[in-house]
């Protein structure tokens, strides 16, 4: 294995997020705001996966997420798991769980909701973690996973 390949495939310290559904990779990027980072980040997508069909993977050097921060991705990637890397070794594995409240990530599906008509940070209560349904704090409507739009 040459040095160049090693740089793409492995990281010395940081986090590897695995088992992201391939179609949801960009949603995960937006949720974690990875476009704002200066860290070295590697993305891989359309990798074959027994469980998901096609999966994506994200490797972020020198970044260790707080639970609150990383759990948000469970909205779109509930099967994602995390490998925490120190000195090329996996020192911890984690899964993600949907938080009780979702603030400022998703857009309300109701076009008549005040949050879609005035500049307001959205807020949802998670009414079901199993099939991901969210209740808007403002219009009180409940949306399911199919109706979920992640903010740009």
């Amino acid at each position: 294995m040459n040095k160049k390949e090693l740089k793409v495939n492995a990281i010395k310290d940081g986090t590897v997020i695995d088992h992201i559904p391939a179609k949801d990779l960009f949603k995960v990027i937006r949720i974690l705001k990875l476009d704002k980072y200066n860290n070295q980040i590697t993305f891989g997508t359309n990798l074959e996966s027994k469980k998901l069909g096609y999966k994506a993977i994200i490797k972020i050097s020198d970044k260790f997420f707080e639970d609150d921060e990383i759990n948000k991705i469970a909205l779109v990637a509930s099967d994602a798991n995390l490998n925490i890397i120190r000195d090329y070794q996996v020192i911890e594995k984690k899964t993600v769980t949907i938080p009780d409240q979702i603030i400022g990530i998703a857009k309300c599906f109701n076009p008549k909701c005040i949050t879609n008509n005035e500049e307001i940070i959205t807020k949802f209560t998670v009414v079901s973690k199993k099939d991901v349904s969210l209740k808007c704090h403002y219009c009180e409507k409940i949306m399911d996973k199919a109706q979920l739009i992640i903010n740009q």
Partner: protein
Amino acid sequence: MKNKSLVSINDYSTEEIMQILELAKYFEENTEQNLLAGKVIATLFYEPSTRTRLSFESAVQRLGGSIIGFSDSNSSSVTKGESLKDTIMTVANYSDLIVMRHPLDGSARYASEVSNVPIINAGDGANQHPTQTLLDLYSIKKTQGTLKNLNIFLVGDLKYGRTVHSLLLALMDFNPIFNFISHEKLKMPDEYKLLLDARKIKYYEHKEFTDIISEADIIYMTRTQRERFSDQLEYEKTKDTYVLRNAMLINTKPNMKILHPLPRVNEINIDVDDNNKAYYFTQALNGVYVRQAIITKILGLK
């Protein structure tokens, strides 16, 4: 309840609801009051609802308060593109309490978060209209002597009608039996039926008025809007099925009362009006007492 906004009926506990109903009774019996002297109440109506606005304004004026505001968004700075937040923050400087009606869902919750005076939601889009629910409860309690163990008939548009949904939620704590009468397309949504199932509350669905109308304690009528039907022929065919007529009331219970949030279109025939079971106009009057109670509770004056 002091300084607490009323956005949704769920903001009040059962105990708080009972306190409001008690106080409304007091205002019905003691109409001359000057509790709001020196207070300014803002009524911001972003869409016209003359009935609700006049009821609030009557409540305020009977208590000696004064009113500022607008009755539709064309006559206000809203037309100049001011945000809801800016309007609320400004008006909060000029008033002790804001009554707001707005076409967008969730606008009242948002207003309550940016305002430093309490907000009373007088209808936010298709979402909530809690003062209507409280006046419905008052009317039921007043005519039946209790809210408990009643057989409630909900008739008409049960799918989109927010009034019936809020009333159903509010009555769940009082061991009711529900009978739903509606067109197939306007049935009570599953989410409400699931709630009733979870609480083991009995409900029955019907496509038309049946003989069991004789079991009703309350018949709550609502408008069926023509716009709800994509097939106008179907609307024409079924609209008369949900019209209440005087002849249908012959075998109803003596205590039974007919309620309607008004305005009606044709769903209660005018031949019902003279029947002493017709209660909808008194129900509207009760709205004034209930709004007096809500305002004075929130301002900590009672």
